């Protein structure tokens, strides 16, 4: 736990120095969502119908794009080797880094989601559910993406491959989150879906850091 906090704090401080890291995913998200009304027309009823899906898919893409270099720098400068040698702490370190990444790129997305909802004409009633679904869903996406970043560390293509590996694994989050928002928009109770998102998140938090650690360990072999 201590190591987790040290790494998270360190990464946050580093990210604070280079603004691009948190600003670009946000920018990308705004751009992608803005493209939809431009592409399919501004009719409010049409936009409202696809709002949940568009916002969520855009968030998924922004998350995957920002994750590619998560471990690359430390792999190149040799600190990853040193992580490995601090016995038993690799999962904690992986979790710490992912937490920092989520705070840097995931949280801002949630903070501007009301703006996105307004652009996409999402009914007011679904706003709370959208924020809640992002709050429960994006950490899972960050964990999965972090695993993808660790798996593709030693590969030639990097970013594209990461998206190809992780997108199929993200299907459950996408399905439950968007269905929660659509349910809320049409006046139903989205409790079940939000609960399932929570369960998936708990599941991911307990297991994925170990998978990330295993992937990093595999990468360090020559």
């Amino acid at each position: 736990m201590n190591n987790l906090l040290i790494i998270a704090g360190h990464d946050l401080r580093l990210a604070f120095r280079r603004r691009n890291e948190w600003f670009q995913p946000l920018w990308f998200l705004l751009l992608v969502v803005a493209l939809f009304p431009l592409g399919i027309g501004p009719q409010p009823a049409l936009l409202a119908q696809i709002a949940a899906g568009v916002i969520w898919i855009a968030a998924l893409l922004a998350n995957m794009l920002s994750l590619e270099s998560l471990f690359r720098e430390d792999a190149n400068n040799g600190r990853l080797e040193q992580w490995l040698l601090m016995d038993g702490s690799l999962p904690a370190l992986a979790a710490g880094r992912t937490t920092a990444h989520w705070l840097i790129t995931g949280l801002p997305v949630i903070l501007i989601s009301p703006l996105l909802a307004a652009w996409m004409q999402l009914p007011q009633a679904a706003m709370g559910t959208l924020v809640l679904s992002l709050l429960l869903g994006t950490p899972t996406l960050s964990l999965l993406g972090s695993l993808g970043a660790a798996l593709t560390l030693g590969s030639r293509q990097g970013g594209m491959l990461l998206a190809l590996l992780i997108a199929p694994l993200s299907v459950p989050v996408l399905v439950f989150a968007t269905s929660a928002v659509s349910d809320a928009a049409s006046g139903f109770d989205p409790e079940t879906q939000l609960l399932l998102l929570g369960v998936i998140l708990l599941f991911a938090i307990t297991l994925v850091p170990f998978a990330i650690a295993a992937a990093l360990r595999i990468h360090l072999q020559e």
Partner: protein
Amino acid sequence: MDYLLTADKVSYERFYRSVFGTVSIHLDAGGCVLLTGANGAGKTTLIKLLAGVLRPTAGTVSSIEQHFIGHQLGLHQELTVQENLQWYLRLWTRGVDRQQAKQRIDEALSRLQSLSLRSQRAGGLSAGQAKRAALARLFLVPRSLWLLDEPFVNLDQASIDLLLSEIRAHCAGGGGAVIASHALGLADLPRSQRLKLPIIRPAQHREHAHE
């Protein structure tokens, strides 16, 4: 005699080929192993195996807690030398406050007379300076076993002498070291053994292969 490191019939395969055949090493307190061999003989691979970064294809390695200064120095380019060392200190130890941390980092840096590097960005250092900054880790937290991959490369003569005397003092005080180096002779270090890795050619490799 206190044991520091044992490698028992260790081998490592890359692309289904053995990198250096099979190696056994035993290191007791006060001893030193000098790894030599031509480029590509597998010195870096062996020292990574001894450090535990790589897992051997066959054989076992066991050792006490060690310092490993590899070919990649483990410095983050955008952080200052002090911040870099602080990162290690915080992960390695518990309950060191800011004042103590600063003191220990200063002390570690001064061992190789690198105090002037303290507030420089690691990305802006010369190759030799970066090496000295990385080597300061050896003195940040005391550990008996040092695994050093080409520690003298890029260092100026004054720093080489300093490091050499530090290694001698370390071994005399009950520590031990495995050093991969071209520049060093056996005479430079007391009680040291040399391990020369041969180049493995495919023809020889056939004889080594067993399964």
